[in-house]
């Protein structure tokens, strides 16, 4: 793939402190507000983020520095931090280790989360019990993307999400590993875009099947 264009000049960066946790928020793109939660992977995600930024106003939060803060607490910080920026309704993408925080956010702040998208959610750990118990409360239409070559256990996590969240779609991205959005950014962008536009109705095909008029 060609070197992706930088998201600049639209990108801006600020740090907000909530309850002693410093959240570094990068903003880029134009359109619907879309919060991207990740944990250390953002540098590799440029082509993907660049694509997302074409139709969305991105608020990218890298939680790698948040350490051992519990997901519930971190989600509350994120919710408050975004509210402080005037965001009262947005969709959320949780990439890999950002996925549990995205889930916690959808549980803790249902009024804020419009749609929820998870990429390669990691295997459940012991400390996720609260999170699992809260899954049936999630009302936001949810899309979970898992790579067909993913050996991290994301598929098993995704099945639990599919079972417990009322409006959840599972989408397998062919020929990708746990770094789905790095392996095939376009294959992720197109269904995400449709899902953000149409929610669960994205299962309906409106692509014309006419070959020639």
């Amino acid at each position, binding site marked *: 793939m060609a070197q992706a264009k930088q998201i600049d000049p639209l990108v801006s960066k600020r740090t907000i402190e909530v309850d002693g946790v410093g959240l570094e928020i990068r903003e880029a793109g134009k359109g619907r507000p879309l919060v991207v939660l990740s944990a250390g992977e953002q540098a590799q995600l440029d082509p993907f983020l660049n694509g997302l930024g074409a139709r969305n106003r991105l608020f990218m939060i890298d939680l790698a520095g948040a350490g051992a803060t519990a997901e519930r607490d971190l989600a509350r910080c994120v919710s408050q931090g975004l509210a402080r920026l005037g965001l009262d309704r947005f969709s959320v993408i949780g990439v890999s280790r950002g996925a549990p925080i995205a889930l916690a956010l959808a549980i803790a702040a249902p009024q804020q989360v419009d749609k929820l998208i998870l990429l390669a959610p990691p295997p459940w750990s012991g400390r996720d019990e609260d999170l699992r118990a809260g899954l049936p409360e999630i009302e936001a239409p949810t899309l979970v993307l898992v790579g067909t070559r993913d050996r991290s256990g994301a598929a098993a996590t995704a099945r639990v999400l599919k*079972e417990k969240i009322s409006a959840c779609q599972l*989408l397998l991205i062919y020929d990708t590993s746990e770094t789905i959005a790095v392996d095939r950014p376009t*294959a992720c962008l197109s269904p995400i875009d449709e899902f953000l536009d149409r929610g669960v109705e994205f299962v309906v095909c409106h692509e014309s099947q006419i070959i020639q008029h």
Partner: protein
Amino acid sequence: MKASFFASVPYTDEVASRDWPAPPMLCDRGAGIRTMSRAMEQALFAEELGFDWVSVSEHHYSPRIVMPSPMIFAAALTQKLKRARIALLGPLLPLTNPIRVAEELAMLDAMSEGRIVVLFLRGTPNEILTYRNNPDESREVTQEGVELILRAWTEPQPFGWEGRYFKYRTVSVWPRTVQEPHPKVFTSGNSPDSVRFAARHRIGLAMSFLPLSAIKQRVQLYREEAAKEGWEPTADDVLYRFFAHVAESDEEAARNIGQVKVDLRKVFNINQNVVEAVTGNRPEMREIDGPFLCGGPATVVDQIAELRECGVGNMDLSFTWPGVSHPQQLRSMECVGKSVLPQIRGL
């Protein structure tokens, strides 16, 4: 060693044309009935003789093998065969909707109470022409189709698929296959790349009409690649399809098959320039002067032992050969059933 009877379903009457596609006007409407009923009788005879599997293939637009839909014939077989496994060798994935294939095979597995075996293929050059598929992409399409079908059979929750060649938003196959996790699956092992694919996905390896030395090489590569993936294939994972003619003695078998040479390039009966355009190169001359298995029972048992030595555990036998009549084919099947199969069980 397991033996499969290949129900190739040749058209029963004489046809004046050897072209592909053969003009439909040459197909006698009544001969269509005779062709199907004779093929069914032959399949039942194979089961009676002790063959472990009856296999069907997919070929289009020609009297050579009248089997455009293996699923339909296999469905009939599930209701007639009481013991033999039914092997679909195999559905051509570039020509189909793989989810439909997964659904139909799951139905067949239920209808046969778990006796389905399947080999997924790309199709020969004429098959690729049938529904206007791009030959340059047929391997990738087939490989993605295989992965999709395996997923459709094993994924416990409904899912969508964002592939390179296939895109679905809703997949949820009912019924589930009777066999757990799914029916035995083979893919083509005719090229080194496809051997690696089979090893990577822990599925069976199928070869056809290759010489013994090539089979040995492919199986060796398959084992090496499987070891890298942390598993060890057995002879049950290897399938080989070939021509066979068995008679009471070597002399009688030689008389029956005559002096005919078969150029495997030409079995498709299409213009060589078209073949070249489809395959991307001029296929090598691959002339064979007799069926792979040929002779009286003792000779043939030795030949099968050699095949087993190469790592093949399932052999799919085609009893057709130019000049060999239908009654001679039946006698050949009978020789295999009565004098060969009892001797190769332990191999």
